C-alpha cells in the first residue's frame, strides 16, 4: 500500500461512513463538535463539481453528508471519495480555526492600510513638489515660447 493510500485510509477512519444501497452514494456521519458547520459547508462545496451533495441534520450536533457520483462509480471510488471528504473536512476545519484566531490582526492590518495613511495627503505632496519644480528658476535658461513671447 502506498503512503497516499495510507493517508486516505487514516482519513476514512476518522468518521463512520456507509455506502448506500443505490451503489452510487456514500454517506458520512459528522460530529459537529469536531467539525464546525462552516468547515462542513466548505468541504461540501469542494465536491459540488464532482458529485451530487446533500446535507442533512438527523440529530443535534450531527450532520449527514451524502456524496453521490454523477456516473456509475469505478471500483473503490466511493471509498476514495469518503477518504477525500475526510481530508477536506480536516482542511476546512483548520482554515476556520486559523481564520478565527487571526481575525483580529487581519482587521487591524486592513484598518491601517485604509485609514492610517490617507492617500490624499501623498497626492497633495506630489502636486506640491511638481508646482515647486515648475516655479523654480531654470538654471539653463531655456526659453519657453509661450512665456517669453514669439521670437
Amino acid at each position, binding site marked *: 500500500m502506498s503512503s497516499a493510500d495510507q493517508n486516505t485510509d487514516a482519513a476514512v477512519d476518522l468518521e463512520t461512513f456507509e455506502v*448506500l444501497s*443505490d451503489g452510487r452514494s456514500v454517506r458520512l456521519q459528522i460530529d459537529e463538535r469536531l467539525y464546525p458547520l462552516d468547515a462542513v*459547508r466548505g468541504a461540501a*462545496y469542494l465536491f459540488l463539481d464532482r458529485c*451530487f*451533495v446533500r*446535507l442533512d*441534520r438527523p440529530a443535534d450536533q450531527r450532520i449527514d453528508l451524502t456524496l*453521490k457520483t454523477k456516473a456509475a462509480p469505478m471500483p473503490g471510488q466511493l471509498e476514495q471519495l469518503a477518504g477525500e471528504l475526510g481530508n477536506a473536512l480536516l482542511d476546512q476545519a483548520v482554515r476556520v480555526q486559523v481564520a478565527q484566531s487571526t481575525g483580529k490582526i487581519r482587521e487591524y492590518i486592513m484598518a491601517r492600510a485604509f485609514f492610517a495613511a490617507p492617500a490624499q495627503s501623498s497626492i497633495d505632496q506630489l502636486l506640491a513638489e511638481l508646482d515647486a519644480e515648475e516655479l523654480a528658476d531654470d538654471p539653463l535658461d531655456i526659453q519657453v515660447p509661450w512665456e517669453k513671447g514669439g521670437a
Partner: protein
Amino acid sequence: MSPDARAADAPTGAVTLDLHGDFYSAAGIDEAAAAYAGLLMVERSGGPTLHRLALRVEDAEVDDLVDHFLNHALHASVTAARRGALGATA
C-alpha cells in the same frame, strides 16, 4: 427519514424533501427553483429552520434532475453565506 428514503417513497415524478436551514437558505432554494423552471416545479414551505419542498419533475428525460437542483441550491446557499460573512467582516 433521510432525503433519499423520502424520494424513494414518493410517487413517480413527485418528491418531497426537507432541507435544513443550516445548510440551505430560502434565497438559495429560490434561485435554484428559478434556474430549473420548466424542468422542475418547486413549492417551498416551512420556516427558516426547515424548508419543506414539494418537487414535481416536469422533464423526466434529464437524469438526476432533483440532485442537480439540490447541488444548485447548496452552491447558491454557501456562496451567499460566504458573501454575508465577508460583509460582516468589512
